[in-house]
């Protein structure tokens, strides 16, 4: 560690955000990295902890103290090597990860955490700028082939890793381009889509094949897929929406957030000259000039606000079931080093719109089959499972468009999953304790296996799954000798560990904590 007293000398300097009044008019990335000197100084705030909780907080186990120190020492290229050693796509996590590492940073106990995510982004940016990141195809091929279904972060990670071990990988994607929700859910303001294309191009150069517009279970039968490959990995995400079970849900103008985000991302793509299909006529979701009510206070809800404002919405209101966050941003239920289950502030609200905490939607009001507004009440409680209505707090709000952003429940079962006939767990996810499903040679990872989670978790899932698949295909020396479960003996420890909590944080969060449907009280 270069500067043992760096954290005492320097304050945290985070991302440089653009002026909200300006950025709300375009779709470009809304923040930027500070200058080099600042970045190196910020690296020097890292304390090289005896127990780097950040590394535990990071689902990937990124070697955070190592690369912080290398950046501080101006040794960017080595930093990049260490960064890539645990993370295939640091440019994705550097941009959109909620950074559970930073909430676990020891400095977060009584100071501001190290700007870990920003340093991560800086390293990978530097790597691309300097031309250090180039394709490195495997030296030899194993002769085995693997089919990966889904090109979200989990699918991309499992493909990249297996390819590195010499296996020939084909990724099947039913949409028109790679990335899954990275591409269709996350707005460009946070992740410009050329960044995904850049990485995918490298993967292709390294030998990964991509087939877009192929719906496995539809266009391509599962039997056909298994025929083609020695192993199959299901990385299909968790795409079945959680719904708001309230009266009036079926009126027009009430949509799932993801439907809206898909359309907006395709719109931006077309604007930028990339191919993207137009929405089916009659199914366009337009926020321009409307009062938009978003139900659900997570990232998805925020992304809806961001898009709606850019589209020219008249006004936006976000209804969040939770009480406001304490001043220090850390609720009592998630003491350090746990990741807070909620986003303390978001970029979108800086650009406009309003958020109301502690509110529960009880009814959607429509007229002539079109939405007019929502009715709700104020609630108290720390978990969506024990909210209590505050008597007399009922309210109603006008709404022209209601977007439901309360998460997903499990992967789609129709099609591939049914055809495979794999076992599911109690929550409807693919059951694959050590990544292999109940069908030999069929593996699962990412949201499809654990329920919806973070991009960083998806990448970690993909990487671990790749080790299991690699071992299945013959694998390297050390892993052959141990049972698959032991591969992670030291990484995963106890399934009830804090790390597990961190990794599944958003599963719980988005699935439960942001749940805002009415619930019988009693």
């Amino acid at each position, binding site marked *: 560690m270069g500067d*043992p*007293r760096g*954290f*005492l000398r320097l304050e945290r300097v985070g991302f440089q955000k653009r002026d909200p009044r300006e950025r709300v008019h375009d779709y470009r990335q809304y923040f930027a990295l500070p200058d080099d000197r600042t970045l190196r100084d910020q690296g020097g705030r890292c*304390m*090289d*902890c*005896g*127990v*780097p*909780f950040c*590394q*535990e*907080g990071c689902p990937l*186990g990124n*070697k955070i*103290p*190592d690369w912080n120190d290398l950046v501080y*020492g101006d*040794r960017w290229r*080595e930093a990049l*090597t*260490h960064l890539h*050693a645990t993370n295939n796509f640091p440019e994705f996590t550097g941009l959109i990860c909620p950074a559970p590492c930073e909430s*676990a940073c*020891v*400095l977060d*106990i*009584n*100071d501001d955490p190290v700007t870990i995510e920003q340093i991560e982004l800086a390293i990978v940016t530097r790597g691309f700028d300097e031309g250090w990141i180039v394709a490195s195809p495997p*030296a030899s091929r194993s002769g085995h082939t693997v089919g990966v279904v889904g090109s979200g972060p989990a699918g991309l990670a499992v493909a990249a890793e297996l390819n590195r071990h010499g296996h020939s990988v084909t990724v099947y994607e039913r949409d028109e381009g790679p990335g899954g929700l990275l591409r269709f859910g996350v707005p460009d303001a946070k992740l410009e889509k050329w960044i995904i294309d850049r990485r995918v191009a490298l993967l292709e150069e390294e030998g990964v094949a991509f087939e877009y517009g192929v719906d496995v279970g539809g266009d391509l039968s599962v039997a056909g897929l298994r025929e083609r490959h020695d192993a199959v990995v299901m990385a299909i995400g968790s795409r079945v929406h959680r719904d708001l079970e309230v009266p009036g849900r079926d009126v027009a103008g009430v949509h799932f957030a993801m439907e809206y985000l898909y359309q907006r991302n395709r719109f931006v793509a077309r604007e930028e000259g990339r191919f993207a299909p137009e929405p089916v006529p009659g199914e366009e979701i337009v926020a321009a000039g409307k009062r938009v009510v978003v139900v659900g206070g997570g990232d998805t809800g925020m992304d809806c606000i961001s898009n709606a404002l850019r589209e020219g919405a008249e006004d936006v209101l976000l209804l969040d079931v939770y009480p406001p966050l304490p001043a220090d941003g850390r609720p009592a239920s998630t*003491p*350090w*080093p*746990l990741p807070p289950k909620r986003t303390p502030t978001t970029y979108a609200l800086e650009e406009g719109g309003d958020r109301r905490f502690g509110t529960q939607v009880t009814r959607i009001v429509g007229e002539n089959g079109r939405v007019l507004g929502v009715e709700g009440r104020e609630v108290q409680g720390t978990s969506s499972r024990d909210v209590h209505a505050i008597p007399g707090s009922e309210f109603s709000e006008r709404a022209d468009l209601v977007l439901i952003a309360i998460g997903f429940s499990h992967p789609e079962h129709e099609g591939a999953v049914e055809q495979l006939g794999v076992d599911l767990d109690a929550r409807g996810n693919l059951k694959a304790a050590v990544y292999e499903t109940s069908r030999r040679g069929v593996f699962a990872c990412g949201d499809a296996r654990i329920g919806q989670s973070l991009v960083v978790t998806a990448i970690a899932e993909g990487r671990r799954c790749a080790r299991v698949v690699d071992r299945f295909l013959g694998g*390297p*020396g*050390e892993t052959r*000798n141990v049972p698959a479960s*032991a591969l992670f*003996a*030291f*990484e995963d*420890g*106890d399934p*009830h*560990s*804090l*790390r597990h909590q961190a990794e599944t944080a958003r599963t719980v969060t988005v699935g439960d904590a942001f749940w805002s449907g009415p619930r019988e009280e009693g």
Partner: protein
Amino acid sequence: MAPPYGRAPRGLYDPTYEHDACGVAFVARLGAPASHEVISRALWALEHLEHRGAEGADPDTGDGAGILIQLPDEFLRAEAGVDLPELGRYGVAMCFLPRDVDACGEAERLLEQTVAAEGQHVLGWRDVPVDEEHCGVVAGAAAPRIRQLLVAAGDGVEDRDAFERKLYVIRRVVEKHDFPDLAIASFSSRTVVYKGMLTALQLSRYYPDLKDPRVSSRMALVHSRFSTNTFPSWELAHPYRMLAHNGEINTLRGNRNWHRARELTLASPLFGDDIEKIRGLLRDDISDSASLDGLMELLVLGGRSPAHAMSMLIPEAHQGRPELSREVRDFYAYHSSLIEPWDGPAAVAFTDGRVIGATLDRNGLRPGRWVVTRDGWVVLASETGVLKASDDQIVAKGRLRPGKLFLVDLERDRIVPDDEVKASLARRQPYGEWLHDRVVHIEDLPDKSPRVPRVEPLRAKQLAFGWTEEDLRVILEPMARDGAEPTGSMGNDVALASISDRRPPLFSYFKQLFAQVTNPAIDPIRESVVMSLAAVIGPEINLLDETPDHCHQLVIPQPILRSAQLEKLRQVDHSVFEARTIDMTWPAAEGEAGMERRLEEMCREASELVARGVNIIILSDRNLGPERAAMPSLLAVAAVHQHLVREGTRLQIGLLVETGEAREIHHIATLIGYGAAAVNPYVMLESLYALQRDGRLPDGVSPEEAVDRVIKAIGKGLLKILSKMGISTIRSYTGAQIFEAVGVRKDVIDRHFTGTPSRVEGIGLDAIAREALDRHARAYPAAVSELLPAGGLYAWRRRGEYHGWNPETIATLQHAARGEDGADSYRRFATYVNYVAVRNTAFRGLLRFRDDVERVPLDEVEPASEVVKRFKSGGMSLGALSPEAHETLAVGMNRLGGMSNTGEGGEDPARYGDERRSAIKQVASGRFGVTVSYLVNADELQIKVAQGAKPGEGGQLPGHKVDRYIAGLRHSTPGVGLISPPPHHDIYSIEDLKQLIYDLRCANPRARISVKLVSEVGVGTVAAGVAKANADHVVIAGHDGGTGAAPQASIHHAGIPWEIGLAETQQTLLRNDLRSRVLVEVDGQMRTGRDVAIGAILGADEFGFGTAPLIALGCVMMRVCHLNTCPVGVASQDPELRRRFDGQPEHVVNYMFMVADETRRIMAALGVRSIAELIGRTDLLVPDEGVDHWKARGIDLRPLLHVPEDVGDGPRHCVRRPEPVLYDSIDVDLLQRARPAIEDGKHVRLERRIENKNRAVGALLSGEIARRHGGNGLPEGSIEIRLQGSAGQSFGAWLAGGVTLLLEGDANDYTGKGMSGGTLVVSPSAETTFRAEDNVVVGNVVLYGATAGRAFFRGLAGERFAVRNSGVIAVVEGIGDHGCEYMTGGRVVVLGPTGLNFAAGMSGGIAYVFDVDGGFRSRCNTELVGFDEITPDEALELRGWIEEHAERTGSAVAERILAGWDAQLGRFVKVMPHDYKRALLELTQEEVPA
């Protein structure tokens, strides 16, 4: 868990680890015939050393006493009942025979037949009368039948020496029969030994012979023994046949091994064919003293003089000692080619019947005082005051000096001075010439370009040898940067190697042993003058001869070879040496079995090479590659070494290792410890080039420079490792096997690591090979990553080694201690610790509680409030911890009813009276702030002999943590780092510990006295010794304890788990019937109630928690305690960081109560109602068959659960206090008489005579004064006590303000220990006629840890005068070596000669030395001090002290100096520590603006 061999569980006690120490003395009479008076004076001396011996559970059974005298010819002629030939033609065997009549007859026949077979004549037997009344019950039950066999010389025996040899051969032949219960205490025509398991007082009563006036001698050697154990053994009493020994040979295992290897080459015309009958001399089951005696005898009977033999076996430090003559240095250098030193603290008195002498180890770690009188009496003893002689009869008084001989030649009737003895030895042969002609130096060999089998990329090699990123970042980089081994913090909580899944190197299975209590660690930094790294490589030949060829060996200054140097050796001209390489790699494709095959092949190859005349063998793993895996180099070295030792050819070759695996100092130490003469760690050195290329070395440091620094760092580190075992030279460390294996199977140990303790089985060769292959697979066929594995040993890392303190356990503990849902979080925490963390790291994770016992209801179990009374917090100093953290912890522990521990940094007196007071006050080697008021404000006084994180080393506090407050409490200098001495300078042996316990008890009779030890093999016997030394309490710490700062190697590689040490302690105490009188505490990563319950079951009454309560208070295991940057303010003195501390006493209280509650639940499930009931119930634990780990499967923990046979139903825990010991203190009387001063402020004057049995005079009185009047004591001069005689040890200890002790006579060691005020004056009696300034008046280690007061000594003092003085003003007339060592305050005036190494580690205070010979500056260690001008103000002050000295003592030297003051002032040298000067300057500068 299936037992590996299904053998019956065996206990952990092993008699091999018994220790002893003692008092020794001899009396000789010059210029007078043999007399009985010699014997009676010797016995009188022995009785005055009684307090140095010990008794066991049966107070009448002594550990052993004995006497060696010349054959009493007149007496024997009268009593033998047979006609004796002339003196010199008959010999006497003193035989201990079996009690059983038949067996006795058989033994006697064996003796008689052997005598006859060897051509001598049996004259007859004499029954030695004994009085069984004077013998303890236990000793009596084991007493042998004692008879003397009289033997006449055969006709063929030419002279007396030949006869002595013949008697020796007979004895050896008999000994080899191993006849049960037969021992020959002596067998000589010159001497006879009377000894037994007796106390000093019993000896002459038991043997009426000794009181018979016809029994006469010109000399007598006596010894009183203090053994750690009291198992019946009459044979182990001293003297042996030629010597009596007060000390301990630390290198014993190596010395024995090397002797075994040497035996085949022994040849001597004096012995002829009889040499065959002698072989097998040093059996494993004989003690160190007996072994030393055996070798001494061999050398002397083989033709060397006793002085010559002694100088070979215990040579003085001779390297870098220009004051020794060239010839003497050559003599030592030459003999170092013949034999390695027998190293360790030792005062050895020896005799062959013609000369009698004594010597001291090179460190001077034992006392020896001598007196010579006008009428020819010479008395040498461990203490002064054992001679009955009037003061006016004394001609000279002196002391044994390190490495010097004190020799009385009875035939020539004179005392031969050391320099004369040495000079004559050095002139025996042209040793210098021989060395010049035959010794080979590496620099003299021609350079050669390498012939390396293959060139592999560095990264592949690093991966295949198991290197980690941490090895580079945490170990190698700091070594290359600082030239010193790196420091870490917070101890070791990682998995034991034997249950780690990270493929740790084999080195990690071997833990360094260290000295504790029975022998001291030594100080490689401050006392480097006695240390040596010089290694000797090459063949050795016949020990009984001396020729030029004996020194035809390669000598290197330190044992690390650069690659180019190794290459020179490999290709050396065959006329010089013939070197060959043996390949340590095997075909990876052959799998695990291939390694064992290769190992066998290597041994065969080595034998063949030896047979072909090769004399240097290089074991190399350079041949590592894709197809060839490297076996652990340690295994290869140990296997080849042991193979050749067994074969008897080991000494024909020098063994070198060329390995890429070694990367830590510990690795190199193990290679040397198992037989390698030198190591070439080539990947370690090559890695430095890569580091430089990557910009990871500081700017401007070239790779070559980095190599130099790393080699320097390894050298320092090796010295530290050997010194913690009390060993001074690498020469005697080589092959000494001073390690304990943890988790290695017995068959591997027995075959390849023969003699190494390994007590719980573990992995076999297959698993060792498996780990090697797995490491190999990281690199081949292809590396998966260009990065090395993270490592995770020194700091937790994902995918790194498992840590007991990890994010999960730390966070859940904090949530539990702090949260409202504490119980829930605690349950999570405990579950995770008990079933995940502990299983992955510690042996107790492999045990489970019985589940088939009847439960008791929870409410019948003693309440948590009772359980917590047994909880202590660990000894963590204020200094290491912030004041906030230290006080919060103390308040928390006090509120819950437990006890907190000050640690070694003292305590703010402001805390004495309230709940911030720590009930346990620690007394560590640095004695920081150990004042008499500190001592009286304690409920428990804990002597920290060792601590888990760095046993064998002192605590360290870096300078940036020593702010003004901390420095004030420690009586040291702000900003100056503090390293405590490795040993307590008043505990060099078990009898010293007994003395310190006595001293502390005097200071505070109400406190219980505790001794803290660290788990290692033999800790049980040490604990038994501690109990016998009258301690109330003993702590057994695990290897894994936390710490502020320590060298990484010590944190990780020294000490073993407490489970083993505690079980061994419990078993040993039970066997000795000592368990019921001592409390046992355990500590080391205690976290949960399960830990507590297992600790109790294995034998603990109390439980220490170190890290856990700190974590409750906010510690997050940053491991930066040594950097002062703790971000949560727990372990920092930085004001900004201290503000961040947010721990509350309640956090500690909550946590401890939850632990207690968990313990109660476990007790309920086990059907036990209290901790007291649980202690020792090993029947409630079983090995957990549910743990199915591939390595842990081989571990057998049943020995931990063993209960010794013959242990009745008596209590297995402490039920009573030790025997009172203070009733005999003269202070009881002094205190009574001083009451008017203490209570009414009157002046009191007292007078008394004292003798050396009166120890710690003044301490009890001082304690009472401090209790009544606080730290400052009484007004100056309130109590004045005039004493006459020889004072016992610790005279004036802890002396309180207001007391003046004036002694006329002399005093022993530790005078003025811990003085806290008052005035101490020692001067010879007015009747003496010798020159006071030339004679010794006080012993060694005077004013150790003194904090205030004044002291005046008219005469010389011994070694280590004023060590750790931090406030006393002292005047003395001359001192020995290491004066003012570690001093941090006070003033010392020396008016006469000084020894070597003055001012080592001195960081405060000032010394004024009158430079008598102009050579003082060269004898001063100027690392930390400079020589300064004496200002006029100072001159005035100095003159004042000298005037006071003259006035109080009548000093002639002082008078002379004062008489010519103006001229004499210029001869004073002022010794000023640099840092002290800076601090004083800062102080004045700060005062000016104000």
